[in-house]
């Protein structure tokens, strides 16, 4: 319970709310308002993890989402999440976290022996060491490296939480709630704009929470609460905390991730864990601040070395002391603020090591008052290891050496504006010498940077730039209310002398998360990797989960130094979203498991489910595949029964999934003539015709029957798979290609329930359904007839005498809402006839028995002639695909065409996909003559039959060829035959 390093006063933590948590199995306590990192600091924990490659002991470097070192596995069981930053994880009661990359324990790590083998882990070691033999990579190298160069462990169980996706729209979107962001929100909000402000932290305020200051004559904390009160009173200003703006997309669309319930053990019931926002904003003000950058020196990864600004955050915001005797290493004026903070908290300053030649008299007097030396020079080494900083070596300007005893070292190498958001559209930031930093050089349309994100580091400048940007953004968005007065503050001094790297003995880390050292950068340069993009890939600098937020600029500055170029000449790598890692679950939202995509149910679905139907997914549809009956041992038995029942009596099948399109207008027939290869303008009213469509390149696109219901009204059907695409294609033809035709298209797929009723007793069944006044005889309703009929009870239906099964058959069509009733009525009326519902499998078997083509033959590579339908192609009119269908290769005599196949051993099962090889030849690509497209067990022939695409197949009827199936290891002979296996003269369907 003792929080050994908790300061007795101060901070924004709630000391009345004590929270217990466990880290690596040990119990600790913290307060509400802590992060895991601040609670660990308050408990004096310095060692929090082992590094990626060398397993070096690591502590906490920062206090934000840029943290490279303090990554933990948070939570346990299904919620265990690796690589969670302790610096942004909010503390809650019962929190469990474990350090990563250590075995068997954090204090005694066997793999730290990797340090001794450091030479093999240098830049490019993957490429150099494990090049040969290739097959060793997967089996040996990669698993070994993964174990050694550890990452956290994922849960390996389905995520129990829910994630949400939402849209938001606003005039002005603001990233960041520091002084610049708040000033922007004030100006935009006062002028009447709809404002959304996203703040990554759980508390708004940005650096005000740690660095204070005076604004409008008020202490910063008071100004902050006054400002938040004013903003809260504006109904159109929304402040979203725990929300990171991570990306910018075209048309003013932004991505943000809201951590709705990451700060509690598990989300309350009916609440989501995280929410992915897509925000559409007319203007965006990026007030995302800046990140302090380290200086690279030997031992700079020792626990207890911390960014100076982070140290101020822990002391001021969290009242937690990262150390008791602190040294500061700075190259700029801003770093000195740390001295004031440390002394103000009653902690000791061991020394200030300032890389600059001069230090102001004010700082000198502060030093003498605080009783610490000011050393001009640079830190060249740190003694410490896993217990943290003990002694700091300093190489003084002029060459002498000094040592400083301290248990903490604050470092300040200057500030890098957060240029990610402004650069995500391939923008390259520009270098500013006066602050030795990259600043935005333009931004995606509608976006502007303000404050520290724009290189304006003073408090006064942040407020001014933020306010002006907020006012301009609101104005651009058409809001003209008065912005009131601008908040005012003084600017602090920011005098910096560039210093990136202190060369000396010992490992000096540039990218601490990926263990990239200064010598790796030098090695990469020596080996010719001089472009920053190559440096990045070769050393993996900046490619870890933190995306190099504390290392990229330093790395390229060092690259510039060793290659003798300037920093702007060296340039930056391309910035890409997301700014922080975003869980895949958040991108998926609710679209997982059953809700992964929409599900479409046929009109008779519930009835079919009652019948015990087995359903199959076809696209978004669930279709009844077969209807098992008690005692049937497998699907084949059920399907065979259904086929025999249809061919011997009557059955019905829901075929509502076919696409249905109404074609209306005086030019409807002319329009269909242009989209089908055959002619429809001469189709008589009351008749149906099978039609085939090509793509413009001459390949078959889709097929289906189209009926003429009136002079100016056709009813067109498509395959299930192409329903949406055919509609889109026909609209293209109608609107873009043939605007002169007076025709309208209406999708009616969902409006009609359609059942195929098939079998010799079809008329007997229909007589029970259709009004007796309707003549269903061959004369009164001939084959391919189509017209509306009256049903018993007064309803009207459409009846089509078309047959896919080859039997005497009708399709009956009723409004979709009556579909289920139709299925029930067919069952009742057909009971004396033994009516049998059949599924898609029986439908498929019967179409193969009849040699009808379907999806496997409409493969996107076949021509009408390949399918045996070449004669349908009209020579008297133009149609889509006509010219290209005549190309040499598409009419070549040796094309693979549809043919039937039967195994010579009639007891053998056939399989789709088997290759067709001439008999007696050894299978190979040179003699591959086609493949089996569709197979089924034919109840009528009592053996397996199939369709295949075979070279010159129709000329080879009767030939025995070889079926070669290397995937299943099967080889057998088949006979090429007429694809119409059953009732080849078609007498049954006309009967």
């Amino acid at each position, binding site marked *: 319970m003792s929080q050994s390093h908790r300061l007795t006063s101060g901070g924004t933590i709630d000391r009345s709310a004590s929270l217990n948590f466990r880290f690596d199995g040990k119990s600790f306590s913290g307060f509400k308002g802590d992060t895991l990192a601040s609670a660990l600091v308050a408990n004096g924990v310095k060692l929090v993890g082992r590094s990626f490659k060398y397993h070096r002991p690591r502590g906490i470097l920062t206090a934000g989402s840029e943290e490279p070192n303090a990554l933990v596995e948070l939570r346990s069981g299904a919620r265990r999440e690796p690589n969670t930053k302790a610096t942004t994880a909010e503390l809650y009661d019962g929190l469990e976290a474990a350090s990563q990359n250590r075995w068997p324990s954090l204090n005694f790590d066997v793999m730290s022996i990797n340090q001794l083998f450091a030479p093999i882990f240098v830049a490019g070691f993957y490429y150099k060491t494990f090049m040969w033999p290739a097959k060793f990579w997967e089996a040996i190298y990669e698993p070994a490296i993964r174990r050694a160069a550890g990452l956290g462990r994922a849960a390996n169980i389905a995520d129990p939480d829910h994630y949400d996706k939402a849209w938001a729209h606003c005039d002005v979107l603001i990233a960041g709630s520091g002084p610049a962001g708040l000033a922007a929100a004030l100006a935009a909000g006062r002028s009447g704009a709809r404002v959304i402000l996203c703040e990554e932290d759980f508390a708004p305020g940005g650096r005000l929470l740690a660095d204070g200051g005076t604004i409008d004559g008020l202490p910063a904390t008071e100004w902050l609460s006054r400002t938040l009160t004013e903003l809260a009173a504006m109904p159109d200003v929304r402040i979203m905390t725990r929300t990171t703006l991570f990306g910018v997309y075209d*048309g003013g669309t932004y991505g943000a991730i809201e951590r709705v319930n990451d700060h509690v053990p598990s989300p309350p019931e009916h609440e989501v864990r995280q929410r992915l926002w897509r925000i559409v904003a007319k203007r965006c003000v990026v007030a995302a601040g800046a990140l302090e950058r380290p200086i690279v020196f030997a031992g700079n990864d020792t626990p207890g070395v911390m960014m100076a600004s982070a140290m101020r955050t822990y002391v001021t915001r969290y009242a937690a002391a990262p150390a008791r005797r602190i040294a500061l290493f700075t190259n700029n004026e801003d770093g000195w603020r740390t001295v004031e903070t440390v002394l103000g908290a009653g902690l000791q300053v061991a020394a200030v090591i300032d890389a600059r030649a001069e230090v102001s008299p004010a700082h000198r007097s502060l030093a003498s008052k605080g009783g610490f030396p000011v050393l001009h020079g640079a830190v060249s080494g740190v003694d410490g290891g896993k217990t943290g900083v003990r002694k700091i070596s300093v190489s003084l300007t002029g060459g002498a050496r000094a040592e400083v005893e301290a248990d903490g070292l604050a470092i300040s190498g200057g500030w890098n504006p957060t240029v990610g958001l402004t650069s995500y559209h391939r923008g390259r930031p520009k270098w500013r010498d006066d602050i030795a930093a990259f600043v935005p050089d333009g931004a995606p349309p509608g976006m502007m940077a303000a404050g520290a994100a724009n290189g304006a580091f003073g408090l006064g400048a942040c407020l001014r730039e933020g306010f002006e940007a907020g006012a301009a953004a609101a104005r651009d968005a058409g809001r003209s209310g008065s912005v009131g007065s601008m908040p005012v503050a003084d600017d602090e001094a920011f005098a910096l002398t560039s210093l990136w790297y202190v060369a000396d003995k010992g490992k000096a880390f540039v990218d601490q998360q990926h263990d990239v050292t200064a010598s790796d950068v030098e090695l990469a340069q020596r080996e010719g990797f001089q472009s920053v993009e190559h440096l990045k890939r070769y050393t993996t600098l900046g490619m870890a989960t933190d995306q190099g937020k504390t290392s990229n600029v330093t790395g390229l500055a060092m690259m510039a130094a060793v290659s003798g170029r300037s920093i702007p000449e060296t340039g930056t790598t391309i910035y890409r979203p997301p700014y922080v890692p975003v869980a895949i679950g958040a991108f998926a939202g609710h679209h997982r498991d059953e809700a992964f995509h929409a599900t479409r149910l046929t009109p008779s679905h519930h009835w079919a489910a009652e019948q015990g139907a087995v359903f199959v997914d076809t696209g978004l549809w669930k279709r009844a595949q077969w209807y098992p009956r008690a005692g049937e041992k497998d699907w084949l038995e059920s399907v065979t029964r259904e086929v025999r029942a249809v061919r011997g009596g009557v059955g019905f099948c829901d075929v509502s999934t076919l696409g249905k399109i109404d074609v209306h207008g005086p030019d409807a027939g002319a329009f269909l003539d242009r989209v089908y290869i055959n002619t429809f303008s001469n189709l008589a009213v009351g008749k149906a015709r099978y039609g085939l469509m090509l793509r413009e*390149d001459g390949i078959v696109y889709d097929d289906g029957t189209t009926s003429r219901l009136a002079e100016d009204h056709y009813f067109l059907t498509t395959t299930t798979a192409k329903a949406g695409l055919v509609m889109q294609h026909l*609209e*293209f033809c109608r*609107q873009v*290609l043939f*605007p002169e035709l007076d025709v309208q298209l209406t999708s009616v797929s969902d409006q009609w329930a359609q059942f195929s009723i098939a079998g010799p007793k079809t008329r007997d069944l229909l007589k029970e359904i259709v009004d007796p006044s309707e003549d269903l005889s061959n004369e009164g309703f001939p084959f391919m007839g189509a017209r509306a009929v009256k049903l018993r009870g007064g309803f009207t239906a459409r009846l089509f005498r078309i047959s896919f099964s080859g039997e005497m058959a009708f399709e009956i069509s009723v409004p979709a809402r009556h579909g289920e009733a139709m299925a029930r009525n067919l069952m009742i009326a057909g009971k004396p006839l033994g009516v049998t519902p059949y599924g898609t499998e029986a439908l498929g078997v019967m179409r193969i028995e009849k040699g009808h083509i379907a999806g496997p033959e409409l493969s996107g590579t076949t021509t009408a002639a390949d399918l045996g339908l070449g004669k349908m192609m009209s020579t008297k009119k133009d149609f889509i695909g006509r010219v290209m269908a005549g190309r040499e290769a598409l009419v070549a005599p040796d094309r693979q065409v549809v043919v039937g196949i039967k195994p010579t051993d009639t007891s053998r099962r056939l399989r789709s996909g088997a290759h067709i090889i001439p008999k007696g030849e050894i299978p190979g690509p040179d003699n591959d003559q086609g493949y089996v497209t569709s197979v089924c067990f034919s109840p009528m022939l009592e053996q397996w039959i199939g369709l295949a695409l075979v070279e010159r197949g129709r000329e080879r009827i009767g030939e025995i060829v070889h079926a070669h199936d290397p995937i299943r290891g099967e080889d057998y002979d088949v006979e090429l035959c007429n694809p119409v296996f059953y009732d080849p003269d078609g007498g049954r369907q006309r009967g």
Partner: protein
Amino acid sequence: MRIVCPFCGERELGEFTYLGDAKPQRPTADASEDAVYDYVYLRDNVAGVMSENWYHGGGCRTWLKVTRNTLTHEISAVEPAAGTGARQVAK
């Protein structure tokens, strides 16, 4: 990306389907095979402003001609594509 449909207003990309270059016009029935080949296969690979066909399938089902900069994704004009692919627009 967002497209301002002349019939439906500003809508999100997910409502639209991209087809491609809106420039080619379908040759008339008497055109040569070469002309049709050109129409079907040969496309300019424009780095910059080009007109494209987009289908508003999630809205009014209009085919649109969208003028878009392929380098910046900036959309400068959206209009119905009516007849833009036809060689002869006449009755």
